[in-house]
């Protein structure tokens, strides 16, 4: 069994093979390699640090607990990003359903309960945005990215932050190649428009 230093030099496929043989160090090496890219992707998708940690954790646990199902003909990172993106998109879809009841919990029975639950939700979202924009992301580009549609956001992140090819993104997100190109082109166009006021 290679030591941690030797593991760090091995390609993903070899580390995954060691993990499939039940080597805990190999699991840890996979987490070490991808915790930042996966967390960054999820963080930029959901824009909440704590939630992003939970969702990234879910993605890693799903992947590592089913490492025996990994097929070496695909890149491990593509598989991992696919799961992470699905976890984030699923959360955003659920949250979109939640926002329908933003003006009060459906479980609230009195007017005061409705008001309280509505205010809590608003406060939470507001503080998350404040924290995000003032402390974490801050820059105009990050704010512009945050305003993109989630599908565009995932494509832009994978293309430009993770340096994936169009083909890899299509495989990762289970989308046709043409759709990926369209999403990225539209996203970049929207970003340029959003950043126009800064140039003037």
């Amino acid at each position, binding site marked *: 069994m290679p030591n941690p230093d030797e593991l760090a030099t091995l390609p993903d496929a070899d580390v995954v093979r060691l993990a499939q043989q039940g080597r805990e160090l190999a699991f840890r090496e996979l987490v070490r390699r991808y915790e930042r890219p996966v967390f960054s992707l999820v963080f930029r998708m959901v824009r909440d640090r704590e939630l992003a*940690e939970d969702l990234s954790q879910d993605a890693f646990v799903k992947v590592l607990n089913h490492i025996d199902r990994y097929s070496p003909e695909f890149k491990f990172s593509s598989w991992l990003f696919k799961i992470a993106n699905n976890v984030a998109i699923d959360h955003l879809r659920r949250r979109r359903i939640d926002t329908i009841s933003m003006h009060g919990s459906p479980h609230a029975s009195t007017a005061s309960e409705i008001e309280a639950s509505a205010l809590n939700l608003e406060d939470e979202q507001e503080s998350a945005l404040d924290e995000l924009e003032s402390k974490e992301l801050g820059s105009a580009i990050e704010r512009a990215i945050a305003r993109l549609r989630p599908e565009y956001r995932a494509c832009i992140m994978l293309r430009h932050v993770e340096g994936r090819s169009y083909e890899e993104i299509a495989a990762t997100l289970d989308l046709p190649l043409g759709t990926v190109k369209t999403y990225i082109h539209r996203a970049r166009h929207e970003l340029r428009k959003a950043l126009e006021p800064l140039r003037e």
Partner: protein
Amino acid sequence: MQDRHLRPDEIELLLDGEEGFGVAPLRAHVRSCASCHAELEEARALLLALDTLPDFAPSVGFADRVMSQVQVFEPWHAAALTTARQFVPATRPARIAAGFAAAVGSGLLTAGATWAVARADIGFLLAQVGLDRVREQAGAAASDVATTVLGQPGLDAMLGGSAGMTAAAVGGFVAVVGMGVVGLRALATSSRRAR
């Protein structure tokens, strides 16, 4: 060369470095149009900014939290290999000596197996003798049981009589035993009711 400004999708084609018949006129237009040239440069600057966006790090202990929920399972073949590796000596001379000993051991084992196969007739003879002894012992035990149950005269009558006689004797025995069992159960039931 075209006489209008580039559309956003055409800017994207140039950004992606596409090559093809339709791209040459776009490039030619950019060279001659200051506005489109500036727009393309701004788009390139945005791509550069996107490419250099930093990664964010999760909080300390993220890996531990993940690993606490991961079931590390070692398949049997990997476990067997690990166990076998424990018996491999660490130093080279020890490994050579162990290899030599293993070669001698497996050679002796092969020679023994070859000898045993060549002498298979002895094995068959011994097995035959053993089987005969077992059969004799089983016959004697069965005879003892029959004598105890039927008595010597009954056994002699069974052995000396016809097949019909033997069947009648066995049937009678089974009937007597059956009646005995039924009688005992009835007795047990009536005594339980009485209590």
